[in-house]
C-alpha cells in the first residue's frame, strides 16, 4: 500500500483543483443563492404550509381556471412555434443560399429586433395594431374596412407580437445548421437527375432537421414562460401560465398556488429540455443568444 508518501505531482494536482474550484465559486455562489435557492423555496412552499399538503397541486390539476390557462398556454406556444418555423425557414434558407454580403444583411435584419427591449417592441405593436393604430388607419384609408379591426388586446395580438420576438431564436439555429450542409450534396442530387424540389425534400430538408428541432425547442420553451407580451397585448383575456403565477402573487397573495403553478411549468420545461437533449446538445439550443 502506498500511503502517506506525498507525491509532488499529486499535491500539485490537488492545488490545481482547489484553485479551479475557488475560481468558479463566486459565480456558483450567485447562481446557488439567486436561482437554485429561490426555485427550491418555491417548490418547498408549494407542498408545505403548516405541514405537508398537496392541496395546491389538487387545485392546479382540477380547477377550471388553471386547466384552461395551461391549455391556452400550450396552444399559443404550439401555434407560435409553427408560425415561427413557417416564417423562419424561408428566411434562413435564403440567407444560406445567397452571396455572403446579402446573407450578412439578412441576418443583421433578423437580429436587429433581438437587441431591442421586449417592452419597446410591445409598445410598437400596440402603436401598430390598436383601434386607432397605424394598420387600422391605413386599411381605412384604403377603404378596405369601415370599422377598425380588433387586432390587439386579444390572442391575435399576443401571437403576432410573440412570434415577432421569438423569430430570431428560430432563424439563427436553422441558419447555423443549413450552413453545415455541404453544397455538393445538392449538386450530386441534381446531377443524378433529381428535380430541385426533390433534392430539397430528400436531401436538404432532412439534413436541416437538427436546426428545426433546436429552433422549435427554444421558441416553444420561451413561449411557455412568456409574460410581458401577453400581459400588455392580451387585454386581460389571454391568461397565460406566467400571468397566473404573477396574479396569484400580486393580487391574491396565494403564494402556495402560485408556487405550484410555477413548479408544474418548470417541470414541463425541464422535461422538454431533457427529451430534446437526447437528440441534440443543449449548448446548441442555448448558445444562440
Amino acid at each position: 500500500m502506498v500511503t502517506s508518501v506525498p507525491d509532488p505531482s499529486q499535491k500539485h494536482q490537488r492545488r490545481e483543483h482547489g484553485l479551479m474550484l475557488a475560481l468558479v465559486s463566486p459565480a456558483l455562489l450567485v447562481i446557488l443563492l439567486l436561482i437554485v435557492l429561490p426555485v427550491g423555496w418555491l417548490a418547498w412552499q408549494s407542498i408545505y404550509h403548516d405541514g405537508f399538503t398537496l392541496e395546491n397541486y389538487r387545485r392546479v390539476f382540477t380547477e377550471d381556471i388553471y386547466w384552461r390557462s395551461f391549455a391556452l398556454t400550450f396552444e399559443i406556444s404550439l401555434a407560435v412555434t409553427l408560425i415561427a418555423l413557417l416564417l423562419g425557414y424561408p428566411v434562413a434558407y435564403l440567407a444560406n443560399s445567397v452571396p455572403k454580403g446579402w446573407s450578412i444583411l439578412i441576418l443583421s435584419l433578423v437580429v436587429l429586433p433581438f437587441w431591442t427591449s421586449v417592452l419597446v417592441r410591445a409598445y410598437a405593436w400596440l402603436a401598430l395594431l390598436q383601434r386607432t393604430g397605424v394598420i387600422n388607419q391605413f386599411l381605412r384609408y384604403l377603404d378596405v374596412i369601415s370599422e377598425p379591426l380588433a387586432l390587439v388586446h386579444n390572442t391575435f395580438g399576443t401571437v403576432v407580437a410573440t412570434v415577432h420576438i421569438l423569430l430570431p431564436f428560430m432563424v439563427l439555429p436553422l441558419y447555423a445548421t443549413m450552413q453545415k450542409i455541404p453544397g455538393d450534396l445538392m449538386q450530386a442530387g441534381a446531377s443524378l437527375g433529381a428535380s430541385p424540389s426533390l433534392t430539397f425534400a430528400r436531401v436538404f430538408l432532412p439534413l436541416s432537421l437538427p436546426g428545426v428541432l433546436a429552433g422549435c425547442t427554444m421558441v416553444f420553451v420561451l413561449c411557455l414562460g412568456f409574460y410581458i407580451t401577453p400581459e400588455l397585448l392580451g387585454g386581460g383575456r389571454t391568461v397565460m401560465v406566467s400571468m397566473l403565477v404573477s396574479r396569484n402573487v400580486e393580487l391574491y397573495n396565494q403564494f402556495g398556488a402560485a408556487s405550484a403553478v410555477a413548479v408544474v411549468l418548470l417541470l414541463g420545461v425541464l422535461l422538454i429540455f431533457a427529451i430534446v437533449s437526447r437528440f441534440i446538445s443543449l449548448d446548441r439550443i442555448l448558445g444562440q443568444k
Partner: protein
Amino acid sequence: MTRISPARIALYVISTLVLVYLILPVLIIAPISFSSARFLTFPPPSFSLRWYQQYFANPAWMQATRVTLTVALFTVVIATPCGVAAAYAISQSKLRIMRLIHMMLLLPLVVPIIITAVGIFFVYAKVGLVATLPGLVLANVMLGLPYVVISVLAGMQSFDPAQEMVARSLGMNRLRSFFEVTLPQIKSSVVAGGIFAFISAMDETIVALFISGGQYQPLTKRMFTALRDEIDPTIAAISTLMTAASFMLVLAASARQKKAG
C-alpha cells in the same frame, strides 16, 4: 443566364415580407417619438421634441433612469470578473464536476424568468432585500452571468493554454501569467460578454416588476406600468433612446467579437 424558378421568386417574396415584419416595429417607434400628436398617428402630423422634453423634465423618469444605469453598471462590474473566472476554470480544469457547474451557470437561461422572479421575490421578502438597490443588482448579476460565461468560453476555445504554461515556466506566477498572456488574447470576448450583461440588466423587466419598488424602480418597471395604464408617447421617446443605446452597445460588442475572430 439562368432562369429564376417560381419557387425562387416565392422564396424572395416571403422572405422579404418576413423581414419587413421583423423590422417594421423597430422602425415605427422613432417617428412616433418625434410627433407632436397626443395620440398615435402615422405618419406624424408635425415634428416635435415635446415627448423628449417631458421625459427629461420628469423627476420620476429621471430617477428611474439613474436606477437603471446604476444597476446595469454594478451588474457589469460584478458579473464580468465572476464570469471570466468561472469560464477560465471551466475551460482549463479537468475536474468532472465542472460539467455540472457549467450547466448550473446556464440555469438563468433555462428557468422561465417569471419563475425566477417569483422565487427571488419570496427569498428577498424574508431577508429584507425587496425594493433595495443591492437586491436589484444581485438579481441582475445572476441573470447576466450566463452571457459572460458563454462569451468568454467561446473566446477561450481559440486560446492555447500552452502559452500560459510557457509564461509560468519562465517564472511568471499564475495570476501574472493570466493577466499578461491569457487576458489580452480573450479581451474581446470579455468586453463583449460585459456589454451583453449590461444590455441584459438595462432591459430586464420581469424580476424588477416583483422585487423593485419605491425610489429604486428601474426604467423598465415604470415603462411597464405606464404601458398597462395608458399609452403615452413619452414611452416612444424613451424607447427610441433605449434602442439607440442598445444598438450602439451591440455594434461595439460585435466589433469586439469580430476582432476576437
